[in-house]
């Protein structure tokens, strides 16, 4: 008589359909593709800039195409989603204890949003938007 415990396999490629929270996780992971692609675009831009004015003008023209604008909008949405989920997670990774109490989580996450806004404005200021 065999008394084997039954081992159930986890489907290696479709497990994330098993629960909405896994899909949420995967959507966060997928945003990194857009963030990565945008970094690549910046590197290509630098390379064009180094190859002279005609290459650079061509690059800028490419950026104005409809495809490019769609990509930028998608990348922006992905980056914002990635950043917010990250900021919301910081309160778990970096709790601050003062005496017997912990600083409320939303204060820690909130501080990250504040730094984000300040840095964004600083960069916009440096590139001469204001």
């Amino acid at each position, binding site marked *: 008589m065999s008394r084997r415990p*039954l081992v159930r396999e986890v489907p290696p490629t479709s497990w994330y359909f098993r629960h909405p929270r896994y899909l949420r996780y995967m959507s966060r992971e997928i945003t990194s593709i857009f963030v990565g692609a945008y970094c690549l675009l910046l590197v290509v831009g630098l390379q064009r800039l180094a190859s002279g004015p005609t290459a650079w003008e061509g690059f800028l023209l490419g950026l104005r195409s409809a495809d490019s604008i769609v990509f930028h909008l998608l990348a922006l949405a992905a980056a914002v989603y990635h950043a917010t989920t990250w900021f919301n997670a910081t309160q778990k990774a970096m709790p601050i204890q003062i005496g017997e109490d912990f600083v409320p989580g939303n204060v820690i996450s909130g501080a990250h949003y504040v730094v984000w806004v300040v840095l964004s404005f600083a960069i916009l200021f440096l590139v001469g938007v204001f």
Partner: protein
Amino acid sequence: MTQMKERLVQLEVLRYNPDTDTEAHFQRYEVTCYEEGVVLDALNKIKADIDPTLNFRWSCHMAVCGSCGMMINGEPKLSCHTFLREYEGVIRVEPLTHFPIERDLVTAPDDFMEKLKRVKPYIIPKEDKPISEGEYKQTPAQLMKFRQYSMCINCMLCYAACPQYGLTPEFIGPAALTMAHRYNQDSRDGGRKERQEVVATHEGVWECTFVGACSEVCPAHVDPASALQQMKITSSIDWIVEHMIPGGKK
């Protein structure tokens, strides 16, 4: 005395008999339970009135022993803490995923127990002192530093929720790693270096990709995900000190 209201409950329970079955199958039951009842009550009623062969574990019926964990409509839950009134229609009850099924709803917890042992979940005193010198004292603030992580009831719901554990069974996993963190954070403990040999490895915290499911399902609000992320940070700091700061190597 007011009459307690009753409701008809339909359950679909996954059955597996290791002596005769090669596959598990669902069996449908119908029982009348008190409106205020929990899923465990329904199972006990089935066992008492309908089918004495149905197997499941439980002990305390008050969410402290951690033995009644099962999948209820696909969600890892303590069956003694899951109210029937929160469900419409047929309730699907399965054993915890990611663990081998011993029989019906009973799973084999051996892998988790083994892993728990590996993180040395006990105080390794900083310095041994004779009993005559009295107890190791701790302030309330020092207690608060780890208290939340000491609330684990070893129910293994977090392992059933964690896709990384399902995909990579070598992963030490949420509750065991959280236990390591609990002792590392304890002012009386000096065992962190020993535990790092298990914690700061691929099978340890670096297998965690922060899905966060463990913390969502934990019935004791332990928040294992937070413990693991904190250990990733301290392990990274260790690495930087060791490899990038001259003279930092220990």
